[in-house]
């Protein structure tokens, strides 16, 4: 697990691939109580809202960014702050990767700033993010 003495600027978070399925999207939207049809009704999504396919929730991608951080921290660090923007949509069947790297270390405060991303198959960042974590010495 990372500590203040082992991380350097440029330290990479392990990348994880995510591919939402009809079942995972169903469970996610049930658990956050989101009945927006673009996450389960193909005909409505393509005919009425004119998306090419079922849309992967923006906040689910936000969760994947948070998981890139918490998986890196394990039980040793603390997430203080996270932010992200949904720049482009992801659709059912898309394989995306969540990852990031250390961009700043504040030894005095014991905090590390991370830059985060969700990238699609074309390597385009569809959701950039940033997090601040506290690490042990």
């Amino acid at each position: 697990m990372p500590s203040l003495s082992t991380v350097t600027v440029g330290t990479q978070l392990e990348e994880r691939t995510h591919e939402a399925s009809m079942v995972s999207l169903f469970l996610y939207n049930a658990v956050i109580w989101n009945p927006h049809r673009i996450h389960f009704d193909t005909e409505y999504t393509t005919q009425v809202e004119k998306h090419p396919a079922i849309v992967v929730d923006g906040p689910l991608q936000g969760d994947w960014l948070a998981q890139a951080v918490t998986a890196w921290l394990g039980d040793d660090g603390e997430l203080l702050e996270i932010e992200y923007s949904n720049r482009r949509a992801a659709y059912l069947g898309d394989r995306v990767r969540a990852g990031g790297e250390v961009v700043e270390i504040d030894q005095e405060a014991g905090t590390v700033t991370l830059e985060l991303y969700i990238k699609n198959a074309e390597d385009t960042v569809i959701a950039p993010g940033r997090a601040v974590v506290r690490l042990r010495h």
Partner: protein
Amino acid sequence: MAETAETTAGDAPGSLLTPEIRQWIGRSGEPLRLEVTRRDIVKYAIATQQRLDKYRRGDEAPPMFLFNAHQDLVDIEDLRPDGLTDDPLLPELPLRRVMAGGIKNTYHRPIRPGDHLVLTRTITDIYEKRGSTGPLIFVVYGVRVETEDGDLVMEETRRRIFR
């Protein structure tokens, strides 16, 4: 909560944002009280395919666990044709399609089973932008999460985009 309604687009000719709409900036909803259960955390952890044991066992809530927790609960026949619910904190907007914009969360302490939380939501900004496909309205909410004793647990800022 800080006001950031300084965009000038809302005053431009042809603006979609009437003074009536902009009056809603700064309004807060009724505080929502909720109790966190281990089972709800585990459901969230399964749905999002969490890997850490503390989340999978439900000992602690993952960082995005409270996303949408303040959602108004309405009967099925009261859902809009797109499945969504009209937000009681918002006036009727001239654009109806909704997209997620992004989030900023600040954490003060972990959320655990048995926590009794109080969520207060405030409209912090409504502004307008020109997108490549036409006008967009951005609505920014702040959600303040406290314990029943008033200790700050987390703060969320969430952007929704209407197109």
